[in-house]
């Protein structure tokens, strides 16, 4: 019998009541008395020198309150990068300035040049059209490899070139060289991990509200991590002390990584509100989102695998160019390095692994973390490569994987991380039981009878989640700790508010977190609520990304709840006139072991706040505890995925018929929510593999600047998923044994789909090594037709 409450149960998402009935409170729903509106005048060229910005005529237009340009931000800090990567020569990465409004140059289409603050948005737009901008257009740097050629135009004139860093990591050179020198077979693959636009349903919004009465600024913003924004904006950009700065991220309609970062518009509205002494609001249009939200992925890679005569993997090396865009976004530098290189061992015991990454500045929108962040890029190249090796060697792709699986844990990889636990054969067994491999030949024949080509593709994945141990990431260059925090506030009558540093923007924390606390205390889940998203209410937590909420913040919540239990037991012992060591907590009752004496949860909590009969000499009144939790290691969810497709050879159109995902997420608190997270991740992975393509032309113009050209996955693009997470190897180092499930679907699915298409084409006699994502009809057709 599945549980009906607590850990392991699937209560419906309580937040959905407000989301589905229009009662959500999103940032754009917030309006403050006296509010003004800002419209950003953005560059329509990719690269140019700003000769002048004449706001004279515009300033006199109706409704204009004030117009700001880059000059107004002289002496104000730029947007910082939160992670300093050290290159292979031991030098710090190059960190160009990133002004809030462009100064001297524009560096991508969408770079903000001026900001018009007016009484209404239409008036702001009208005035923006009257601003005269004189720009001398410069050649745009778009292609990463040409950006690194000697004599290339520089995106940042004060840097020596367009190389942000050249990073190398992994086994020593001699070991890798030896593996390749002695290889019986080497498989090589060149590929691109396509650039994506995150496209959360809710575009970004920022509302700055300065209160002259107490010199406090409030920023309402669509963020996944309000405390991170408060720290970055307060300390690095505007120089505002934390106690004068409140950051509120209310209901947020999806983030997928792109709402982690600190953006110019947030700093602008906070700054401008102080200048004009009125609230300033910005709501992104979808068109602006395409040219101002940080993009994802965009890696160009050559990867090679060495195998011995028995098909054991002996060496792996990979060389990637990672696009940074024009400026370094908050965590941009960490994505292709520590979130990507450390995963290159995958599920395999390859003894020698080496990773090279050149990060490159181009005249494009900044690129940063997007669902999976670095790990999808690692998984894609590795799992495509292993599949290609299997085809070249004429061996079964599942057997080749199994033969090379890591089977003993803990396992220290050649790329720094240590997997605590896992069972890759078990998830692969489950996957095989889900996909009816035996029946595939008959299904392929049936497709062939209709002129269609059927293919089956599989892959494995491993990811590092629960980001992250602070001391480790500190050594790697992070400029922040990555712990999280929770405060459990028990009220007098026993109801509980848990203030958490994690932020829920679709994940369902409001349902899941109370399941854990209620289970620990043996009380009804309805007595527990979480509070999140407001720096004035919650302890300093680092927010939600990297599948960390339950693994890190949930662990803090467990620790704080344990403190509550300890204190409550002391109170109960006093009330029951027993020894604390004899007190047991079960089903919300404190009892004295071996007796029928007990006192209810509510009596204990009331005693804490009405301490008439209370051990005041030993303990303080009240019942509220905070814990900060810093994980000892990453968590390592893993799994095996399979995809079955049909290709129409006449048009190149790929139809996804079936998708199966067998994951090991460690312990699962709410299976329904986990399943939903996997579904969403799979849709995004299928989107990347089949549809989504953020493309620039050679002049740095965005070709896919709206939904007319940027293809999002829709319901009829994806199949009914088969999802399993019954294989559980609990995380060994956090109290819940959880690993995180938010990114797995997006990480694990693109290679399975591409492998399936290549299986279909190669089985039909086409000799095709690879097709770059997205596998649009025209690309597949072109591959078939040479």
């Amino acid at each position, binding site marked *: 019998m599945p549980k009906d409450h607590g850990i392991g149960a699937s209560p419906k998402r309580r937040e959905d009541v407000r989301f589905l009935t229009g009662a959500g409170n999103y940032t754009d729903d917030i309006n403050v008395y006296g509010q003004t509106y800002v419209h950003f005048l953005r560059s329509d060229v990719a690269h140019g020198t700003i000769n002048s910005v004449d706001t004279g005529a515009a300033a006199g237009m109706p409704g204009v309150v004030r117009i700001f340009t880059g000059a107004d931000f002289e002496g104000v800090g730029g947007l910082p990068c939160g992670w300093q990567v050290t290159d292979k020569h031991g030098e710090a990465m190059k960190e160009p300035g990133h002004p809030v409004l462009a100064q001297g140059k524009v560096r991508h289409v969408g770079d903000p040049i001026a900001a018009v603050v007016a009484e209404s948005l*239409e008036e702001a*737009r*009208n005035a923006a*059209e009257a601003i005269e901008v004189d720009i001398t257009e410069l050649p745009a740097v778009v292609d990463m490899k040409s950006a690194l050629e000697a004599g290339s135009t520089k995106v940042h004139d004060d840097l020596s070139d367009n190389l942000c860093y050249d990073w190398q990591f992994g086994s020593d050179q001699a070991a890798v060289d030896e593996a390749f020198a002695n290889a019986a077979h080497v498989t090589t693959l060149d590929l691109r991990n396509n650039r994506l636009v995150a496209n959360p349903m809710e575009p970004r919004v920022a509302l700055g509200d300065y209160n002259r009465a107490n010199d406090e600024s409030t920023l309402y913003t669509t963020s996944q991590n309000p405390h991170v924004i408060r720290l970055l904006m307060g300390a690095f950009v505007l120089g505002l002390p934390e106690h004068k700065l409140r950051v509120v991220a209310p209901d947020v309609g999806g983030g997928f990584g792109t709402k982690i970062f600190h953006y110019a518009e947030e700093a602008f509205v906070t700054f401008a509100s102080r200048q004009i002494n009125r609230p300033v609001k910005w709501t992104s249009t979808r*068109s602006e989102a395409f040219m101002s939200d940080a993009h994802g992925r965009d890696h160009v890679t050559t990867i090679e695998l060495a195998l011995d005569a028995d098909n054991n993997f002996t060496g792996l090396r990979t060389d990637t160019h990672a696009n940074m865009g024009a400026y370094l976004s908050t965590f941009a530098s960490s994505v292709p390095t520590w979130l990507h290189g450390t995963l290159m061992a995958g599920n395999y015991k390859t003894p020698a692994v080496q990773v090279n990454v050149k990060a490159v500045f181009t005249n494009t929108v900044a690129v940063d973390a997007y669902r999976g962040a670095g790990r999808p890029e690692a998984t894609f190249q590795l799992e495509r490569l292993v599949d290609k090796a299997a085809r070249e060697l004429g061996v079964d792709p599942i057997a080749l994987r199994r033969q090379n699986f890591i089977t003993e844990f803990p396992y220290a990889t050649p790329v720094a991380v240590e997997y605590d636990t896992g069972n890759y054969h078990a998830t692969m067994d489950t996957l095989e039981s889900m996909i009816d491999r035996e029946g595939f030949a008959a299904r392929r024949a049936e497709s062939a009878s209709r002129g269609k080509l059927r293919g089956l593709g599989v892959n494995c994945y491993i990811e590092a989640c629960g980001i992250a141990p602070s001391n480790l990431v500190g050594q790697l260059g992070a400029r922040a700790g990555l712990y999280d925090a929770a405060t459990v506030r028990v009220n007098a009558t026993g109801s509980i508010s848990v203030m958490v540093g994690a932020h829920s923007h679709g994940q369902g924390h409001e349902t899941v977190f109370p399941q854990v606390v209620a289970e620990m205390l043996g009380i009804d889940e309805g007595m527990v609520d979480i509070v999140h998203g407001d720096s004035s209410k919650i302890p300093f937590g680092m927010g939600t990304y990297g599948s960390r909420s339950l693994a890190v913040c949930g662990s803090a919540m467990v620790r704080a709840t344990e403190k509550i239990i300890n204190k409550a037991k002391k109170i109960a012992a006093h009330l029951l006139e027993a020894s604390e060591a004899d007190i047991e907590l079960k089903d919300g009752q404190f009892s004295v072991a071996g007796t029928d004496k007990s006192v209810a949860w509510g009596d204990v909590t009331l005693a804490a706040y009405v301490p008439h009969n209370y051990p005041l000499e030993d303990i303080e009144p009240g019942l509220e505890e905070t814990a900060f939790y810093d994980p000892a290691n990453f968590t390592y969810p893993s799994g095996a995925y399979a995809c079955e497709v049909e290709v129409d050879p*006449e*048009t190149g*159109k790929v139809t996804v018929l079936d998708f199966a995902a067998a994951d090991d997420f460690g312990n699962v608190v709410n299976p329904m929510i986990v399943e939903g997270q996997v579904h969403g991740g799979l849709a995004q992975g299928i989107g990347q593999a089949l*549809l989504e*393509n953020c*493309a620039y032309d050679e002049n740095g113009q965005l*070709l*896919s600047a709206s*939904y*007319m*050209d*940027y*293809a*999002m996955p829709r319901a009829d693009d994806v199949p009914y998923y088969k999802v399993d997470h019954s294989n559980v190897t609990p995380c060994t180092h956090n109290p819940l044994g959880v690993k995180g499930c938010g990114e797995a679907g997006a990480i694990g699915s693109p290679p399975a789909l591409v492998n399936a298409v290549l299986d279909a084409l190669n089985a039909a006699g086409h000799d095709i090594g690879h097709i770059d994502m997205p596998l*649009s*009809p*025209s690309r597949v*057709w*072109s591959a078939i037709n040479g």
Partner: protein
Amino acid sequence: MYAFDVVRPSSLDEAVAALGEEDAQALSGGQTLIPTLKQRLAMPSKLVSLTGIADLQGVSADGGTITIGGATPHATVAAEAGSFPALAQLAGNIGDPAVRNRGTIGGSLANNDPSACYPAAALGAGATITTNSRAIAADDYFQGLFTTALDEGEVVTSVSFPVPEKAAYVKFEQPASRFALVGVFVTKSGGDVRVAVTGASNDGVFRWSEAEAALSGNFAPEAIDGLSVSGDDMISDLHGSGAYRAHLVGVMTKRAVAAANG
């Protein structure tokens, strides 16, 4: 959007008069025009809404001809043009329900987007486009990308389609917009075959006369084996090269013929 006035006349005469004013523009379903206004790409002083004019609404069938009011939404055509199933099906597959409930045949034909569906139906069925001042044969109506025979202020009041003996529309969707990357509308009436292609050409919707000639002799997919259109004049973009579109013209024509034959 820039500011503008809106009028909502109930008769065609009032609408035509209003459209005579400087910078006035017709507004039908708004599915193309409103996004254009939001992006400030157009600056009409006055929008003249056509959807309140009863004479421009509805589908009627009469002696082998089906006539659709200029402001009839796609959803109505999908539901009521049963005597011309290929047309009803085309209308039922435009955009999404919101687009089909608002967007109209007159708006689509006036706009003449090179990737739109209705132009293929009008040209492929040899329709007549009737306006407030004249009747225009489809063969004379379409004049290149976003260009038609309509004069300034002229209103499409209805479109009449002779119902063919056999017909089908096959649309290969552009993955993002789901407009036609290539769409082919084929009709057969006696020995007369028409093949109209949308989505593909730099000059907008066109008739593929070679295929028409071959199919008039033998209305079967094989009849166009070996025929091809040149990729040189085809649209080439993020979603496919000219050569790919040219190839799809052949594939979709065959599929349309097969579908028309049932």
